[in-house]
């Protein structure tokens, strides 16, 4: 497979955003609040401005004349603090200087005076009767959505968003339940920390603007910049440079607008590059409290679930609204068949680092709780956890409720695959425990539309223009495979062009694992359009033979006439050459009968089984074996699927055992340095770590392909927690797993009986 970018990555010559520079480029550094909640009394720039290498300084006052707030659905985050700060680490002042060192030093000399406000460090504090409000209260707004779904903005103090979905009649189901179980689970909060931080270079051009950045939403960014600066979108050009990892940290507009403002103030291009420490202060995953009340029949059939997914959104919305809705709607019920479901999601504001898009989008939180409770219920009723699940899993073709995409994976097969590999049927060795989990999320986004263009050159090589960001997921390989197959050319002749909003057709952003499925489909259709045009051209030009025109292995054939593509071009366009262009579209259309406005593109289940050993004297847990399976539908790139699965699985393992942001009693980030924030290394990988790429073939992409990218992270933490509970007989209800909880936790109540 073509691996042009990989060769450059191996050689160390691959260019990332930090390697991009413009002549005369200046450098920006940010000044941040040390206080979690405070009003800005005065900003003293005199020391900073006394440095002759400082070119410009911006504060909230410089946002006048702009539409200065960012956020998804709810826009509440100013480019720089306006009058007050709502988390420790919030940017307050930006300094632009001739070099990065001068900017950093000048920033360190900015002085700010504050009037402290009471912090709101936790969800409990935010929801208390006398809690200080982070924002002035606006009237709540209600948004009806599709059948069974509705949402509210600011329904109560410090609650940013509430979403509710109901299907069926929960009261009826609960009334006839044989058992009702209520459990609450607590989920931790990680920082994405890709190796490469966010970095943007912006150049203000008067009536136009150009930005180079590693943001993976270039078209969203373009639209946002247009709004913020009151420019036409067509006057803004965004280059999305290949990124060194993302996991959600580089999604949705971030500092690019601020960078552009600085360029305007400084009258020169400006680079704003963050450090790891700053990344930890920019965005995090959502911590969550999940309460599930589940009704089960006397003989072990799931009847109904009422779930509450309460997310700690931090100080500003970012993408919290979308995370809340997705996590609540699609992940909270899990992969099971219910007679009735009532799911409630809430985003709570706290004076902490903003939470937003993080791989899994609310799925990991919901899956941890859901799969822990399913396991707990199985044990309490005396059922085998795998058999109990299989009894209740959705079958292929079965929709979870009306108006939603039917299940397009064989969930039983996936669960069996990992259970078998972990040796579920045999009892675990002494001192060890085993656990399984099935994670559930949707893929393909809402109302999604992806466009692609393929350009075929005279020599039979092709360029693919698509907005799918390059995060190393191997999209250039996938694109090459698809186009090569359709046009009968060699994969090494196909290149994925850099993303430039002036040239690349629109894409709604690299999310929801859309890569292979939706975008792949658009690319395929674009290639097919080129193929049609090639055949039509040949039909027009090859008039010495008659009959249908065929394209095989890069050769045109009509009757007994064969022509290579170059020869065809020469005949049609003269030796000066030309190109053939084809466009393609993949859509996930609006559907009024779908609760969230459109059905999901496809389902993304994942399956995990873990075997852990627990030190009975200290509670220390070690993962001995981990098996993770994902359904790729059809694997266009097996090695790529495996790589994505392994990476997601390690993030799940990190959530369970290693990584967690810690905030002090005022909500300040307490472990916001690389050494303070523990991350998994190779020493944390399980000694036996297997991945299985299933191909159930029911996805919407080429040959039944689906996207991959967010699967594996969903089920792993739950599987490890289930294994821990199995090993030590204790109710595990929080992440990260702590040896104290394992050693001293509440003992599980098992009912004996048939399993």
């Amino acid at each position, binding site marked *: 497979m073509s691996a042009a970018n990989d060769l450059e990555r191996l050689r160390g010559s691959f260019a990332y955003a930090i390697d991009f520079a413009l002549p005369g480029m200046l450098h920006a550094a940010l000044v941040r609040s040390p206080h979690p909640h405070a009003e800005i009394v005065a900003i003293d720039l005199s020391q900073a401005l006394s440095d002759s290498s400082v070119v410009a300084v911006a504060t909230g006052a410089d946002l006048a004349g702009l539409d200065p707030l960012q956020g998804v659905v709810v826009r509440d985050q100013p480019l720089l603090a306006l009058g007050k700060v709502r988390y420790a680490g919030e940017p307050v002042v930006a300094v632009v200087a001739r070099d990065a060192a001068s900017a950093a030093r000048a920033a360190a000399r900015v*002085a700010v*005076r*504050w009037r*402290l406000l009471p912090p709101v460090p936790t969800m409990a504090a935010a929801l208390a009767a006398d809690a200080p409000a982070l924002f002035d209260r606006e009237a709540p707004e209600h948004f009806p959505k599709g059948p069974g779904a509705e949402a509210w903005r600011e329904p109560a103090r410090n609650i940013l968003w509430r979403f509710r979905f109901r299907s069926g009649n929960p009261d009826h189901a609960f009334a006839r339940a044989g058992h009702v179980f209520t459990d609450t689970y607590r989920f931790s909060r990680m920082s994405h920390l890709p190796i490469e931080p966010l970095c943007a270079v912006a150049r203000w051009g008067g009536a136009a603007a150009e930005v180079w950045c590693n943001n993976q939403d270039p078209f969203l960014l373009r639209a946002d910049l247009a709004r913020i600066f009151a420019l036409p979108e067509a006057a803004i050009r965004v280059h999305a440079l290949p990124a060194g990892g993302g996991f959600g940290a580089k999604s949705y507009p971030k500092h690019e607008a601020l960078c552009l403002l600085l360029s305007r103030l400084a009258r020169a291009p400006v680079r704003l590059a963050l*450090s790891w420490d700053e990344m930890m202060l920019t965005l995090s995953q959502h911590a969550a409290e999940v309460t599930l009340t589940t009704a089960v029949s006397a003989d072990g059939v799931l009847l109904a679930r009422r779930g509450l997914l309460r997310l700690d959104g931090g100080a500003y919305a970012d993408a919290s609204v979308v995370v809340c809705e997705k996590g609540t709607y699609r992940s909270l019920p899990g992969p099971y068949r219910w007679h009735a479901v009532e799911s409630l999601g809430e985003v709570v504001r706290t004076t902490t680092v903003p939470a937003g898009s993080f791989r899994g989008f609310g799925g990991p939180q919901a899956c941890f709780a859901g799969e822990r409770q399913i396991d707990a219920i199985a044990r309490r009723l005396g059922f085998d956890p795998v058999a109990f699940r299989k009894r209740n899993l959705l079958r292929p073709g079965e929709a979870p409720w009306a108006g939603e995409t039917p299940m397009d994976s064989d969930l039983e097969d996936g669960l069996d695959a990992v259970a078998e590999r972990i040796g579920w049927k045999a009892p675990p060795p002494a001192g060890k425990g085993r656990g399984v989990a099935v994670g559930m999320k949707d893929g393909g986004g809402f109302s999604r539309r992806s466009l692609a263009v393929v350009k075929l050159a005279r020599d039979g090589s092709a360029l693919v223009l698509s907005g799918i960001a390059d995060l190393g997921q191997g999209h250039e390989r996938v694109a090459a495979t698809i186009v090569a197959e359709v046009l009968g050319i060699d994969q090494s002749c196909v290149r994925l062009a850099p993303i430039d909003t002036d040239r690349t057709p629109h894409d709604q952003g690299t999310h929801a694992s859309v890569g292979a499925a939706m975008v792949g489909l658009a690319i395929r259709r674009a290639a097919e359009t080129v193929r049609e045009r090639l055949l039509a051209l040949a039909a027009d030009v090859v008039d010495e033979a008659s009959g249908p025109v065929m394209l095989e292995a890069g050769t045109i054939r009509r009757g007994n006439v064969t022509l290579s593509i170059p020869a065809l071009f020469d005949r049609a366009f003269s030796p000066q050459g030309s190109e053939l262009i084809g466009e393609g579209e993949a859509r996930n259309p609006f559907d009024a009968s779908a609760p969230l406005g459109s059905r999901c593109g496809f389902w993304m289940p994942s399956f995990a089984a873990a075997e852990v050993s627990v030190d009975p004297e*200290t509670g220390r847990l070690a993962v001995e074996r981990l098996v993770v399976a994902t359904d790729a539908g059809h694997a266009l790139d097996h090695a790529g699927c495996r790589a994505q699965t392994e990476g997601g699985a390690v993030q799940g393992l990190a959530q369970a055992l290693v990584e967690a942001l810690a905030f002090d009693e005022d909500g300040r980030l307490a472990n916001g340095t690389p050494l303070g924030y523990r991350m998994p290394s190779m020493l944390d990988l399980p000694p036996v770590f297997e991945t299985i790429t299933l191909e159930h073939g029911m996805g919407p992409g080429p040959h039944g392909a689906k996207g991959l990218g967010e699967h594996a992270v969903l089920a792993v933490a739950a599987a490890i927690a289930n294994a821990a509970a199995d090993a030590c007989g204790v109710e595990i209800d929080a992440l990260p797993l702590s040896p104290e909880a394992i050693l001293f936790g509440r003992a599980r109540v098992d009912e004996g009986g048939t399993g």
Partner: protein
Amino acid sequence: MDGTLHTTEASGTLTMRSRALIPPLRLLRPRTTEEAVAMLREPGAIAMAGGVEVIAALKSGGPQRTVVVLRGLPGVDRIEVVEDAVRLGALATHEAVVRDALLREAVPGFAETWGSVANVRIRNQGTLAGCLIAAAPHYDAPPALAALDARLICRVGDETVCLPWHAPRGLVLALDLPRGTRFAHDRSLRPWLLVSAAARLDAGRVRWLRLAAAGPFRVGAAEDVAGAEGLDGPALARHAKHLARAWANTLPEPDHLVPASPGPVWRRHAAAVLAARLVARLADA
């Protein structure tokens, strides 16, 4: 919002760490330890061995510094036997310590443990003396050296003095580990707890046993574990749990935050468990 009678004002911004904030450095390169000591008398002058700790600290910014570069000082990287100690020169890297055959023989258990500390990059650059002086909360050096009751050979003014491991003064020239000491270390419960154990046996009987732990609290000097003196190997093994539990009850309260950190009950319990295992391991050796 309810009115407040008292408003608190404050000033300041968040201190950010960055290599862009490293101040101008005046580098001095002494050719002898005497020169080094003289150079260090300058106000604000700091000594740099491997540089791991010093450079990390400089990223917090500050005024221009004078850095006395110790690399190249003759003889300060040696590992040798001096009377009843193994003397680790202050410039001996962690990796040199790990590979030293003499140390392996003289303080069994220490070099083997040290190979899993940090990573190969840091071990090839950093020194024990350097990380001892930095004494970050999660480091292995403080409890290890506390258990061993390591001594520091320091040059203070014109004198060479021998100081306890936790009280360096002047220029640290070497670290002395007691010869013939058995050492064991358990870092499996990082970052919440690290436990070290060291014992000296003469004619098969315990002369002293010391235990030390690192956690979210400062590591202080370790006392000899009461009741261990005079025990032979098998007796030590039998008493391991009891000795460990008594010691674990003396652990101090946490003084900083570690995320999801288990509470003091677990910590004392787990410390006792790890310590008992280490003592049993020392008894068997």
